[in-house]
């Protein structure tokens, strides 16, 4: 196996990882500040992808599609926060799981009702299509490089938002002591709606960006949701830094495991069997990673110690 292939696979893992980070960042913020488990986060990812596909289809502009995705997801997020989620902050985790599970059902079938059962078309813009040649002669799709760049920029932006702005101070204060910042005169319910919409917009952005290279269809959010949960649990719930490290770990484990485990098995097995058992193990690998991390550190890598 050549070093070019290995570098290319690492880039793939990185790209997968930063997209997972966009999903996980919202989830972990919402959990950290409001203590809420939001299973419907995957639905917001789907809303973003459908909005982008619909608008890009009408106008022919991918950029307008992206903007539509951000707005639609943030709007959907704000609405469900105000109508449903707000009533759940004090509820048990169990109630939150059930209520947001119900929201998944409503969003999925509602989307199918509006857009029908067939996948929608969303393509990458012409300016970003095709491969570029990187130093070392590696051919790599420009769009995927753009995704890595956007993901890293968003990570940087979030860090700046939380560490350097007034809202960031409120968010950090909210993570530490919810009642106290209310007592200090911060409008909690507005802050919560804002954070929820921000998380939703990030999920919608991820949906639209990834939708261009995958298929935009009902149910697309659920596999990503499970992965995003794995990410934030590995990283430690509530920690943006943890979400970032967790996302890259999961992205790299999944991509590299799928490629190298079958190769590894071929060293001591017949090729066909090695291929089958290697890819079977690879599909379980991120869950094993999560299990190991939690057995080693029960609150994740960067989680608060209890």
């Amino acid at each position, binding site marked *: 196996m050549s070093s070019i292939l290995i570098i290319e696979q690492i880039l793939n893992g990185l790209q997968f990882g930063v997209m997972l980070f966009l999903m996980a960042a919202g989830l972990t913020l919402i959990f950290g500040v409001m203590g809420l488990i939001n299973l419907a986060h995957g639905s917001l990812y789907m809303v973003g992808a459908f909005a982008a596909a619909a608008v890009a289809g009408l106008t022919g502009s991918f950029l307008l599609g992206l903007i539509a995705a951000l707005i639609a997801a943030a709007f959907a997020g704000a609405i469900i926060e105000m109508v449903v989620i707000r009533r759940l902050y004090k509820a048990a985790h169990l109630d939150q799981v059930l209520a947001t599970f119900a929201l998944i059902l409503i969003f999925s079938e509602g989307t199918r009702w509006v857009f029908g059962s067939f996948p929608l078309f969303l393509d990458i813009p012409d300016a970003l299509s095709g491969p570029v040649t990187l130093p070392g002669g590696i051919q790599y799709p420009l769009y995927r490089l753009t995704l890595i760049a956007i993901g890293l920029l968003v990570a940087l932006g979030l860090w700046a938002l939380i560490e350097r702005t007034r809202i960031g101070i409120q968010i950090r204060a909210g993570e530490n002591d919810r009642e106290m910042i209310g007592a200090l005169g911060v409008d909690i319910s507005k802050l919560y709606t804002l954070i929820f919409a921000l998380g939703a917009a990030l999920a919608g952005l991820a949906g639209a960006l990834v939708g261009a290279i*995958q298929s935009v269809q009902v149910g697309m959010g659920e596999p990503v949701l499970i992965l995003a949960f794995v990410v934030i649990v590995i990283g430690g719930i509530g920690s943006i830094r943890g979400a970032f490290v967790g996302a890259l770990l999961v992205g790299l484990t999944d991509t590299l495991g799928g490629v190298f485990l079958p190769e590894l098995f071929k060293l001591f097995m017949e090729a066909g069997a090695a291929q089958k058992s290697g890819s079977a193990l690879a599909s379980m690998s991120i869950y094993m990673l999560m299990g190991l991390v939690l057995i080693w550190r029960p609150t994740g890598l960067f989680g608060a110690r209890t």
Partner: protein
Amino acid sequence: MKNLILATATAALCATGVLAEDVKVGMITTLSGGGAGLGIDVRDGFMLAIAQSGRDDIEVVIEDDQRKPDIAVQLSDKMIQSERVDVMTGIIWSNLAMAVVPAAVNQDVFYLSPNAGPSPLAGQGCHQNYFNVAWQNDNLHEAAGSYANGAGYANSFILAPNYPAGQDALTGYKRMYDGELAGEVFTQLGQTDYAAEIAQIRASGADSVFFFLPGGMGISFLKQYADSGVDIPVVGPAFSFDQGILQAVGDAALGVVNTSQWNKDIDNPTNAAFVDSFQAEYDRLPSLYASQGFDTANLLLSALSVAHPNDADAFRDALRAADFDSTRGDFAFGPNHHPVQTIYAREVIQEGDVFTNKIIGVALENHSDAYAAMCKM
């Protein structure tokens, strides 16, 4: 689980002149969730043929299996125990078919498969009451292998999801394909990102790629493949190039060769009439699945004009004779009640705004399947 019941007021006579006894058909298919497009097409094709027959003594009960095996089994129990249907049909997915069909045919119900053709039902598990009107699962992959030989490919990279139908697909391709393998990869079921596999394809030095990735997986793969700059020719079975999903793949699919037993440009009067009437009725182009639903219904109608399912032996013989006009032209059953048919190579083209397929040649002529010899009926 919408109940759709066809009934009109006039009385009817069978073609043989015997006073007809009503026939009840149970259709279990996927009408909600991710795979709903396929089930809807089968249903629409089937109901179109029933409507065109003008027969009002056929009642079709339609239920949605949500693509869940346990729901399908439950519905099948309902069809048999409560509705007391004579004939069942409709299932799209092999795993659901394996859950439903063996039990159903053992309870003396006839089952006509409009889509799934898992290998156990073609070989050792074949049954006299089970008829497959579409294909044995391996058929289109075998045709792809045969096409690859004809196109002069000698070093294929092949990939499919790691589940039984995926493993069968690669086996089917290799059964007919004579060249070398540049690589063989099993992906995860439901995988959406194929960057890693595409990198392996690029590094493998292959001269062709064969893939079987049904539904959304195929859309993702094709879009990413087109964007990667790898320009090795791609071959696949029709499932990723079907009318329903081609629009979602867009330009990325143009020029790709895929194998299918049906296409809308097969030149026979039945097919032309089918394509026209389907478009008129539903305002969209028919898909492979719609044609299979349509053929299934016409097979059923042809047998009903000879005998009622209550007369099981006569009805079975009538089904076996397959005396109907298929959209595919000639149609006959092999000894295991699976089709013996010609499979074509198609190419994806653009007609105006619409992406569709055009036949470019024959991949396999009068092809049966590899399991027929194992069937002892």
